[in-house]
């Protein structure tokens, strides 16, 4: 068949199973948009900012576990996309970003809307390409999906000059869609050593990271914990891997973990770390993290093994596969004494959620939303205090239930990620907890949400402040609140209405609980607005640079 590069690209995406893409057109990418318009299988979602488009794709990828596609034109389109891609890199989210470039002959001439997309995407991607010949698309596009989804997932970026999109190509048939590269073989000797350590441990803790979710190993990890009697903690990215109300769950560790969680970890004689990377927000001062614990580190990415903490046993492999090999060698063990000690710690140092009964307070609002939903709901957050309150107080019970920007901590993530999640899973309710600062970062995507009619509920916890900055200044900078509070209130109700979005304002509601319930029961996009107290803190907290056991507050 005779095709243009653009038509070939559409067909390659179609056969890769892509049904929704998000992006914004511009000059150089128009040949591709022209071809896309004719596709019967791919729906294009027009974002209002390329960063929004990138996060919409992330939302799709995070709920599905499959690579999602975002599109941008050259120059400013590509640079606008960058933050969303960097975010995907740090959270290991599979994305295929496709941008157009000025025509090959003009590359290097500082042509209109030319930037070195290839160069700027190197540090934020797993791999990237500048396509030099239309024939190369046959190899590059399947490889892009294979690399994005294989091993430790991540974003890849394909930059395509306009003339490559318009060039003709004659092919007999399409290349096969790509398959994931198989995971490495698990080392038998390391497995035996890991099992021996687990069987001999007295106070072991299982530590689950985002890799458990990416590797679809949540069920296996929970079963493993039950078999070996392992109290289990999760990182922010790992939340949902084990239901929080599971008797073995210790909840989230680290900077805003419960006191009992961090104290229990300090008593561990063995850490079994699955798909986690010893991030500083999780482990605090590295030298004082679990000082008495031996470490078994299991991860698909060999470069994570020993990067921060030298493990006693390191196993490179797919988490689910490793657990399947390890489980038969590990003795069933009720570990009554250790679990009794955990119960004692939980009793002595519980997670305090003050104001939980008041729907117009931070914890109360989160709990009230949770009370109206089942575990099928998807929860996205933005970044700030509200994000940490959600991590602490929302009862996550399922992998891929929480979508949050963990590694990069990008304000503006929540709304577009929620839109993407709703596009990928139209049957579910998607809630986005946001702060007023974060919402302003991608507020234009309210328009996209309304246009697409997605079932998202944006819960705006409005403290008229960059709350987390306010908290830091209050606690660690002599209460000098500077550039953190907004001097005048924003009328979010009118803004949302201006975008044609339905609004439920808990501030104005005679019965805020009933108002919230009505909002949750209404299909389609809406904003739920609620003012909260700017002086509330995220507690407990590990101060910057301190060990996890040196928490303040809570």
């Amino acid at each position, binding site marked *: 068949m005779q095709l243009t590069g653009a038509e070939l690209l559409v067909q390659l995406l179609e056969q890769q199973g892509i049904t929704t893409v998000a992006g914004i057109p511009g000059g150089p990418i128009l040949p591709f948009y022209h071809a896309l318009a004719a596709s019967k299988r791919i729906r294009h979602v027009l974002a209002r900012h390329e960063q929004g488009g990138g996060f919409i794709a992330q939302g799709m990828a995070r709920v599905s576990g499959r690579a999602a596609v975002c599109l941008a034109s050259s120059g400013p389109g590509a640079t606008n996309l960058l933050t969303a891609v960097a975010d995907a890199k740090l959270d290991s989210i599979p994305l295929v970003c496709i941008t157009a470039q000025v025509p090959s002959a003009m590359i290097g001439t500082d042509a209109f809307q030319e930037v070195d997309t*290839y*160069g700027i995407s*190197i*540090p934020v991607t*797993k*791999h*990237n390409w*500048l396509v030099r010949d239309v024939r190369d698309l046959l190899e590059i596009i399947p490889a892009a999906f294979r*690399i994005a989804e294989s091993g430790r997932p991540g974003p890849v970026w394909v930059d395509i000059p306009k003339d490559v999109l318009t060039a003709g190509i004659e092919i007999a048939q399409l290349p096969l869609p790509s398959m994931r590269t198989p995971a490495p073989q698990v080392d038998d000797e390391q497995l035996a050593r890991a099992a021996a350590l687990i069987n001999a441990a007295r106070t072991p803790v299982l530590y689950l990271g985002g890799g458990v979710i990416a590797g679809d190993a949540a069920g296996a990890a929970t079963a493993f914990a039950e078999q070996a009697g392992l109290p289990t903690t999760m990182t922010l990215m790992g939340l949902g891997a084990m239901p929080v109300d599971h008797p073995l769950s210790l909840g989230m560790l680290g900077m805003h973990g419960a006191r009992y969680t961090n104290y229990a970890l300090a008593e561990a004689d063995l850490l079994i770390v699955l798909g986690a990377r010893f991030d500083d927000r999780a482990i605090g001062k590295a030298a004082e993290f679990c000082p008495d614990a031996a470490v078994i580190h299991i991860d698909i*990415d*060999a*470069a994570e093994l*020993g*990067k921060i903490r030298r493990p006693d046993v390191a196993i490179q492999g797919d988490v689910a596969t490793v657990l399947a090999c390890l489980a038969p060698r590990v003795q069933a063990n009720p570990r009554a004494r250790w679990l009794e000690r955990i119960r004692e710690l939980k009793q002595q140092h519980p997670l305090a959620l003050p104001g939980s009964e008041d729907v117009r307070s931070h914890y109360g609002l989160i709990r009230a939303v949770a009370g109206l939903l089942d575990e099928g709901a998807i929860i996205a957050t933005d970044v700030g205090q509200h994000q940490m309150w959600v991590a602490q107080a929302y009862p996550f019970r399922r992998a891929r239930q929480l979508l949050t920007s963990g590694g990069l901590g990008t304000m503006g993530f929540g709304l577009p990620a929620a839109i993407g999640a709703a596009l990928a899973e139209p049957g579910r309710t998607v809630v986005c907890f946001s702060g007023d600062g974060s919402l302003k970062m991608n507020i234009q995507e309210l328009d996209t949400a309304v246009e697409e009619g997605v079932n998202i509920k944006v819960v705006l916890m409005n403290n008229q402040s960059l709350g987390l900055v306010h908290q830091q200044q209050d606690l660690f900078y002599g209460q000098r609140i500077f550039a953190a509070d907004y001097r005048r209130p924003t009328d979010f109700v009118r803004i949302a209405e201006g975008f044609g979005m339905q609004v439920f304002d808990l501030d104005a509601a005679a019965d805020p609980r009933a108002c919230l319930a009505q909002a949750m029961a209404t299909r389609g996009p809406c904003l739920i607005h609620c003012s909260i107290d700017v002086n509330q803190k995220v507690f407990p907290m590990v101060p910057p640079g301190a060990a996890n056991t040196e928490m303040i507050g809570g």
Partner: protein
Amino acid sequence: MRMENDDLKPGKVVLELTVANHPGVMSHVCGLFARRAFNVEGILCMPTGDGDESRIWLLVLDDSRLPQMVAQLEKLEDVRSVGRHGADRPVFERLQAFFE
């Protein structure tokens, strides 16, 4: 990046990379070192055989972060293999004459 023209002292290591030969590969390799604040003392790159692959020689300090750097190099798509040599591969000494 800076080419040192003193002898290969103990504490320095030569890395031998076999990479795909295309215009971006040097950026990937050098960018990785720069990004992780790991200095490259010397660098040498030439295509090999039929030009499908290149060999990159890197002169680096043997500090405690080197294994992590090698692990990160091995993750680059275009890097096919990474070898490590000590004083047995005097690649950079032999170039001495060009840096006098």
